[in-house]
């Protein structure tokens, strides 16, 4: 817990003064908010937040500390962290570390004690925008202006390829399933043995996706985002998985090409950025949402069954519904704004969802998709 004064400055000049949290220093990124009340550890370690300053709308964060099991990546990838109250204590049987300590250890600059609701309303009303967090030892207008300037100088999320940066650099095998935490939820993958092979493109992949693939009986090889179609096919997979990840999907042009080359060769399943890349490969376009969908309470309708899933989402870009040509069908829609939440190729075994069926954090309503994937092998 720090009493060092810090400030969050938005590119439009709005500022919030609070207390420094985590590492000392200055950071910049796109300021976004997520509405999940649980799962801050999963948020902190979700590579899709790369380049973003993440605001938690839930006010009490850090209560259960951080543990060795719930990380979605080995380390946090986000650019900065904003909370109303960072817990002064860690209380959970699995906790190893406090929020403040964890952020400091990983060099993540954060801020606490600001009116996160005011910030959220501002982002909602004016759209996500870049921001900067820095220390504010003296509260003078020069210091404030300097931070606002830093926010303005930060690169714009549109047109930014961030996936390449967070992707693994060499392929690796993944063996671990959900184990003791295997969800007792309808449709949860529960294969008796590992008898399928999947190559997973890493654009910033979350571990729980890998765990779910293992639960579905897959031997998973994770490959860097720039792996060629030929190299993938050399691995003789039963299916190809396109992961989530940060940044503008349209900027990852090489991956779009690779996916186009793989279409029809192997069953394809994409999540989040992977979904957007599949959409682009199928000729659709993507665009940026005003402030995105980030939370674990987003309702989605599966158009094939009519059933509603409460889903986990984390995306700022979306596949434009009008751009989807004859090649693909919309399979899932967001109940609130009607945005595209799922796509499937009309004839080929290729489908994707914008949301996160692996949840982590969030409800286990959409796990059936993993077996839908393996049943296409």
């Amino acid at each position, binding site marked *: 817990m720090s009493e060092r004064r810090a400030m969050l400055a938005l590119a439009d000049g709005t500022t919030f003064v609070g207390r420094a949290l985590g590492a000392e220093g200055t950071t910049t990124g796109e300021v976004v908010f997520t509405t999940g009340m*649980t*799962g801050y550890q999963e948020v902190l370690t979700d590579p899709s937040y790369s380049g973003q300053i993440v605001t938690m*709308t839930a006010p009490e964060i850090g209560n259960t500390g951080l543990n060795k099991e719930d990380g979605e990546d080995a380390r946090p990838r986000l650019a900065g962290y904003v909370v*109303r109250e960072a817990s002064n*204590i860690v209380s959970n049987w699995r906790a190893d570390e406090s929020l403040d300590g964890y952020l400091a250890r990983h060099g993540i600059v954060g801020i606490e004690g600001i009116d996160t609701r*005011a910030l959220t309303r501002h982002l*909602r009303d004016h759209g996500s925008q870049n921001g900067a967090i820095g220390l504010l030892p003296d509260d003078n207008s020069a210091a404030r202006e300097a931070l606002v300037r830093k926010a303005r100088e930060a690169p714009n999320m549109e047109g930014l390829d961030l996936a390449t940066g967070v992707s693994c650099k060499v392929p690796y095998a993944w063996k671990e399933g959900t184990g003791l935490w295997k969800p*007792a939820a309808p449709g949860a993958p529960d294969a008796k043995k590992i008898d399928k092979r999947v190559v997973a493109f890493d654009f910033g992949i979350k571990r729980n996706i890998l765990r779910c693939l293992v639960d579905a009986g897959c031997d998973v090889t994770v490959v860097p985002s720039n792996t060629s179609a030929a190299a993938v096919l050399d691995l003789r997979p039963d299916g190809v998985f396109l992961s989530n990840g940060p940044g503008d999907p349209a900027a990852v042009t090489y991956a779009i090409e690779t996916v186009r080359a793989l279409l029809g060769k192997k069953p394809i399943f994409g999540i989040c950025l992977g979904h957007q890349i599949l959409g682009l490969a199928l000729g659709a376009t993507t665009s940026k949402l005003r402030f995105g969908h980030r939370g674990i*309470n987003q309702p989605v309708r599966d158009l094939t069954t009519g*059933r509603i899933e409460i889903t986990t989402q984390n995306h700022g870009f979306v596949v434009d519904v009008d751009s989807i040509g004859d090649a693909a069908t919309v399979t899932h829609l967001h109940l609130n704004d009607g945005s595209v939440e799922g796509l499937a190729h009309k004839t080929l075994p290729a489908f994707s969802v914008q949301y996160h069926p692996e949840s982590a954090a969030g409800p286990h309503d959409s796990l059936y998709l993993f077996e839908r994937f393996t049943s296409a092998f």
Partner: protein
Amino acid sequence: MPRREDLRRILLIGSGPIVIGQACEFDYSGTQGAKALAAEGYEVVLVNSNPATIMTDPELAVRTYVEPLTVDSLTKVIERERPDALLPTLGGQTALNLALALDEAGVLAKYGVELIGASPTAIRKAEDRGLFKLACEKVGLSVPKSGHAHSVEDARAIVAEIGYPAILRPSFTLGGAGGGIVWSEGELVAKVEWALAQSPTREVLIEQSVLGWKEYELEVISDSVGNFAVVCSIENIDPMGVHTGDSITVAPAMTLTDRELQRLRDGARAIMREIGVATGGANVQFAVNPANGDVIVIEMNPRVSRSSALASKATGYAIAKVAAKLAIGYRLDELRNDITRVTSAAFEPTIDYVVTKWPRFAFEKFPGADPRLGTQMKSVGEAMAIGRTFCEALQKAARSLETGKDGLSSGLATQDYPALAQALERESRRDLGMEAAPDPHTAVRNEPTIDEQRAALRRLIAIPTADRFFQVADALRLGIEEAEIHAITGIDPWFLAQVRRILACERALTGAALEPTRVRGAKQLGFSDRQIARAAGKTETEVRTFREGAGIQPVFSRVDTCGAEFVAHTPYMYSTYETVDETPPDTDRRKVIILGGGPNRIGQGIEFDYCCVHAAFALREQGFETIMVNCNPETVSTDYDTSDRLYFEPLTFEDVLAICRNEARGGKLAGVIVQLGGQTPLKLAKPLVAAGIPILGTSAEAIDRAEDRALFDALLGKLGLQRPKGSIANDAAGARQIAQELGYPLLVRPSYVLGGRAMMIVHDQQELDHYVGVAVEVAMEAMRDAQAGHQKPVILLDQFLKDAIEVDVDCVADGTTVVIGGVMQHIEEAGIHSGDSACVLPPHTLPRHVVASIKEQTRMLAIELGVRGLMNVQFGVINQMTYVIEVNPRASRTSPFVSKATGVPLAKIAAKVMAGATLTELGIVDEVVPRHVCVKESVFPFSKFPGVDTILGPEMRSTGEVMGIAATFEVAFGKAITAASGPLPTSGAVVFSVRDEDKPVAIVCARKLHRMGFTLLATGGTAAAFGRAGLPCESVQKVRDGSPHIVDRIRDKDVVLVINTTTASREIRDSYAIRRQSLLTGKPYFTTMSAALAACDAIQAGATCAPGAPIEVRSLQEWHAKPASG
């Protein structure tokens, strides 16, 4: 699936009278349900015995039956109405049980009524422990291991399986009697034998203990196609072992990782599917082992519950409304979220604030009650508070309770913890037998040393009680480590760490100068101005002036279900110390603020909420912008639909003033209504006026003239009205002297207490002397709570109007015109608190000219006081002489009853008058005296308080009421009794044990009963009197004469009715066991001769409501349509 077209008429069952465990929350859910079904075009037929409910307002249904909630009367309603469907999931356990009973009796099948919302199979699976266990195991979830024992050997075998400690739950005992915890082998035999002895079937359920595990609830909703959402997670601060209704709870869950929470969600979903809940809301409770995350399912309610009301208020998600719509065929995704308008109801609310609920207890009303909290719920109400952080919400909840705490304040200066610890441990040793509680004694507070306090606190916090959390804070104040407190209490360290933050702030404020950063920090942690003032050695006003000068003001945020992701259209507000105010922009409408009643307690409950809701409805009709302030999550008033704007806030001066100023800032605040929410808002009248806030209706001065004794005497003198002679004493000697002048019996009470607290009738000097000590102590306590420390406590002594008939009158006045709402004759004689006695409207035995005189006196009082709004007057009538006992220029507890009886919406009219209309303009000119008869009967929580005497007195103890309505007094009374406690008997043995002065009336009763074929049993004197009157009677021994005695006899099956009256305190103790035994065996009993006589008349008139009795049911709409006399 859209709404079902095959249904036309739907029957909705309410939950009956307010009792512990079933309160206003079911009026809230029933009202939402009735509104939702009507809005969908269905004909709603509603049954509820409780007249003080919004759901029984005739506008909410095509026909509203205020009838007993029994299979018999519901069968009659079904026979008459032929509904297509019955929706039982909004009326609590009562409605669910009735639906099941109607199904089992074949009534639903016979009349082709479909149960919607829950199937009989699902209800049985959820309610039956055995079936529930099987269901849980089937989906791979654990339940506490348990087994039924019929002997000590059985018990030994079961405990070998489940281990120590083990929980004992004797079957079929009321109030958890005989239950307990076996900690070790050494205790097993004694405790099991005791438990077996307590059970009428010699059966004990032995259950694995999960004491100290964390307790969670998930409020879930699902539709007919299996769509499912968690509306809210709730965490209990008190770990397992304390009933969730008695626990301080927090939403959302604070100490679970997402993985752990999702595990609970998966479990809840699996249980819902396995149980087969058709549609709607449900609640699943879990225990989580803090050491390893193990999960056990505790229970599941396949219906809307108290927690659903809390979850609705905590998140803004209208569970009952959605549940009603799901029951008639809609899917979740076909419904919109009312708050955002643009998003779907198929989602899980997310909140960016913290909600705490704090239960409110009434142990002071039940001397002898075991103060320890356990698996049996004991609280009578609750307050909820919203804050941006846990600390803020916690402290706001603490001050919302109105128990004299202005936050998490310290008891170190006022409480004698060593004495408390000793008393509590004594309680722990006292068996829950047939022994009367010891008399309350006056404890002299010693000045304990810090070490003594510390040691006492360690003992105290080990036992959950109403004040434990405050004691935990004091333990921290005295430097006991958090780790140790966690080990003793099982309270999660996270919560203790938050308390530490509050205490650190308190220390920083103590003795320090006020400084903006520090004060803002304190406000953000939920400190009230008073709390800051006490720490800093300032006055509350000084703190407020400083704070406002420094620009430290609350802003009002919105409850929006979505963490600000979408725009909220519903102005459901809470205060917090943040940066952006979200109060809606001003309109050109004039505003009225209505102050609610806060948490339910004995004497202030749903009746006042009913009045506040009516005011909101009425003023909205008049074109005002209505603004409600309340902190009780159970109520209809805190439904965001009820008023134009809802502030979910504590009802303290500071909080209310901030709201008034916020609303007055730009708009046109016409004024504040304080006279409808009971004492809570009424006591804010003066300070609000002083702060320049306009009060609508009767002036604060008029309220004073009615409440201040000297001014009241002057008022009556001026009008030439009589009242019982009385005087004020400062000490025991003074009291004795006054007693001599006035003569015994005397009604005595301490000053500065409310609701008949510690009011008593004394018959001789010995009783008076004993009383004076107690009264002074109570008065001191009350004054400490009210912080009126500068005044000396006094004792008020009044001539007791022995054998007087009490009469209540409700009227509405506009300053020039007075219209009588109703005159109610009490059935019990004077001396029983008006809130506890049964009453009849119109009066059934008073002569016409007495009633006329009572009305005239009421008019005179209303005019003289300048009443604008409601007024209630209590009279005593002896030999046709009338005495004014009390005048309350405000809404009374009887307002809803009168409205239901006469069809005249008194509270609505009063609200319009307060806002400036005249009665003539409103067309209210004549009193409506119905041709039918309505009887109100009170309902008591005695079964929840083993060890408490059931005898009635001047101190109110009922929690709720029912109404019987019929063409004759006898049938109306019979219905009321049936609704309150079950049907009167038609044959069997009646036990009499009455005081000498009641013997003549007892003989009248006995003769009637004898003629109807009842056999008579009586103790010594009563038996002899019956003999002399020529009545055959079996004589039984009194308890002190040894077994077999009267109490043994009451246990026998043939005894069907008990009539027992006493006066002097020794006799009361002697006969305690008679009343307790009657209660335990569930037999009807009467403790006043007047009520007993009325019961005999009802039985004679065939008005017992026993199955098959020819009693008609009829709706309020039909009763009200009958021409009434003017």
